[in-house]
């Protein structure tokens, strides 16, 4: 599977292609609208939703403010429970650690569950290069992996596929990875699920190494938590002899009690369920049960740099519920791949350019992948003001500014390609600072209105390719006001 997003075109081009794909748009529209309506109903059932949202925000902010303290506490607790903690500063280091840990077991196959962090760092590719095959076991991840595809949604990575496409992928690919799809497989959900179940069961029973992510890590007890709905997590977490969990440092919460908030807000926001079917927690190792060896790889990969940014750091509150994707009108049309990252949608648009920086074309374009409609902020269960961060990152792109990269403060220069826009903004600013100039411009526009085109040249062409401009009126308002209310009135 091609898990890498390197060399992605910038968002607008990728999105244009997606907008033109009728099947993709229909799949996305159907899926996002169904889930967003269900979420709204599930949330409306709770009369203390606003308070839960505020509580989640506060817990996360408090933890992030004292992240060093809680991570050390976590390390202590995990170690005391018989686990081993590894610290990974970036993707390469994390991949090296995990690869070594797998190689030390002597195995060449691993099963994986719930691990966006491992997709973020490209772990599957790194393992493959070392001769280790990684099998995804989430149903949607399986579809993505078998389809040589990339995930396009946080919760439903194969949201861009419909049932017919999934059946075709299963028929063509399952046999090459293990148990083939049953003869005469149809596209009914029950048959597709059964085919996946049989295929995966074989993997679970054979695997001796499991790799997981985690939704939460509890500092006080060293416990990791996975919230899921298929049961594959339970299998991956309990059957193998060695369990390696790769988790972003921001996933820590101080106490068990804090879970009370998130175990209510996460399922309702993500799958619109009151409670998810499986919540698994694991703490170190136990003699007669579960894995014999447990390793926790704490992944930084840009997170502490993000923490250094006063406005942008709120992105680290994210609990990956995907509610913001499902309400986003831009995501609905552009699809997840256009965001060029394992984190698509509104959260991806603010997280990726912070974790990776704004140097690449796709990362510099992400802060603009929004009409700032505010729907994402409204649904976010930890109240991340995504529009605020988008605008903040736009500023970084066009004006440069101070950022922290690998712990060092550096001054970014404005990104290339914004010179014309910057000049136009400055000119407009000048005009708006001089009411007389504005008035002269309006008069000129009115006098020449007969010859005004309804399409625009230059960068404005993109607008007028699909929309008509309004005609310029014969008289701007301020001239009418002067004519009817007299010179100098109200000045």
């Amino acid at each position, binding site marked *: 599977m091609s898990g890498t997003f390197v060399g992605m075109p910038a968002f607008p081009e990728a999105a244009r292609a997606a907008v033109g794909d009728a099947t993709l748009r229909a799949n996305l529209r159907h899926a996002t609208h169904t889930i967003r309506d269900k979420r709204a109903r599930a949330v409306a059932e709770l009369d203390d939703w606003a308070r839960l949202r505020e509580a989640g925000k506060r817990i996360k902010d408090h933890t992030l403010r004292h992240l060093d303290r809680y991570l050390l506490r976590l390390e202590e607790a995990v170690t005391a429970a018989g686990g081993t903690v590894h610290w990974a500063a970036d993707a390469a280091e994390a991949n090296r650690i995990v690869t070594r840990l797998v190689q030390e077991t002597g195995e060449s196959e691993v099963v994986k569950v719930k691990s966006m962090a491992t997709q973020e760092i490209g772990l599957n590719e790194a393992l493959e290069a070392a001769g280790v095959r990684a099998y995804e076991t989430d149903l949607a991840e399986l579809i993505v992996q078998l389809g040589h595809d990339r995930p396009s949604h946080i919760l439903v990575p194969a949201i861009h596929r419909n049932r017919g496409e999934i059946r075709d992928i299963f028929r063509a690919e399952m046999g090459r990875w293990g148990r083939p799809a049953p003869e005469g497989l149809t596209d009914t959900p029950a048959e597709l699920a059964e085919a996946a179940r049989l295929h995966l069961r074989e993997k679970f029973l054979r695997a001796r190494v499991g790799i997981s992510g985690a939704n939460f890590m509890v500092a006080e007890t060293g416990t990791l938590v996975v919230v899921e709905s298929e049961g594959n997590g339970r299998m991956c977490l309990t059957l193998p002899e060695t369990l390696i969990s790769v988790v972003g440092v921001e996933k820590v919460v101080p106490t068990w009690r804090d879970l009370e908030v998130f175990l209510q807000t996460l399922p309702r926001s993500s799958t619109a369920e009151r409670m998810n079917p499986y919540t698994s927690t694991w703490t170190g190792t136990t003699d007669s049960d579960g894995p014999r060896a447990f390793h926790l790889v704490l992944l930084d990969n840009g997170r502490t740099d993000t923490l250094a940014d006063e406005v942008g750091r709120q992105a680290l509150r994210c609990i990956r519920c995907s509610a913001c994707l499902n309400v986003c009108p831009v995501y609905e049309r552009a699809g997840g791949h256009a965001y060029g990252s394992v984190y698509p949608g509104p959260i991806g648009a603010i997280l990726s350019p912070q974790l990776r920086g704004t140097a690449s074309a796709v990362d510099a374009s992400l802060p603009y992948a929004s009409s700032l409609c505010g729907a994402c902020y409204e649904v976010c269960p930890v109240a991340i003001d995504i529009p605020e961060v988008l605008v903040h990152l736009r500023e970084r792109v*066009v004006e440069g500014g101070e950022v922290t990269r690998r712990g060092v403060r550096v001054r970014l220069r404005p990104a290339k390609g914004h010179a014309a826009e910057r000049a136009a903004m*400055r000119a407009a600013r000048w005009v708006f600072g001089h009411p007389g100039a504005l008035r002269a411009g309006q008069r000129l526009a009115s006098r020449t209105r007969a010859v005004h085109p309804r399409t625009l040249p230059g960068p404005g062409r993109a607008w007028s390719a699909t929309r008509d401009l309004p005609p310029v009126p014969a008289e701007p308002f301020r001239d009418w006001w002067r004519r009817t209310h007299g010179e100098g009135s109200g000045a």
Partner: protein
Amino acid sequence: MRVALFLTCVNDTLYPDTGRATVKLLTRLGVEVDFPEAQTCCGQAHYNTGYRHQAEPLARHFSDVFGGYEAIVTPSGSCAAMVRELYPRLGERARAEGRGGGLAAAVAPVVPRTYELTEFLVDVLGVTDVGAYYPHTVTYHPTCHGLRSLRLGDRPARLLGAVKGLDLVELPGAEECCGFGGTFAVKNAAVSAAMGADKVRNAESTGADVLCAADNSCLMHIGGTMSRLKAGPRPVHLAEILASTEEEPLT
């Protein structure tokens, strides 16, 4: 009562009818309207595109021009949201960057006194029946800023509901963004156009002859899409509907 009309640069330049309608409506309701001629732009386009430092002097200019008024009324949801929501933030950021509290102090008086038109009518004047007459089937697009920043709620619907002759019909997917988003419409033209086309289709499906909103920026985008697709009802600003009377109908 004497208020200052903040018309906004877009309305001033492209939609003077909305300005005239606002003046007519407020005057009819016994409000004395002033138009401070030094007004220009709230700085929203600069701010939202990432040019915060260019938006700051515009916020200051706005505060200088309108600082002396007891109430500032604007027929633009997004510009009202810029002043109310983002001016305080501009002031705070300037302070946080060690540039002093001057901007924060300058914007402080205008922030709570700036009203979007429907807020002013319903909350300050306490009217929902403004004596308007408009014999058309109308559907209402709430706009993102009106809906989620200002939380206008049912104010526009109550005002429209009291207009004589007006038949208000519900817009499917009303809460979805029309796809304008300022420079978003240019920077991500394909997605923006797709969003606009969906909005037009929804408006068309209502069978209304007029699509109403309280923000001409959104109406410009939707109207431009309609004109290109040759579909959908006529876009009309809410102020123009409310200004229309039996004696002086808007057509």
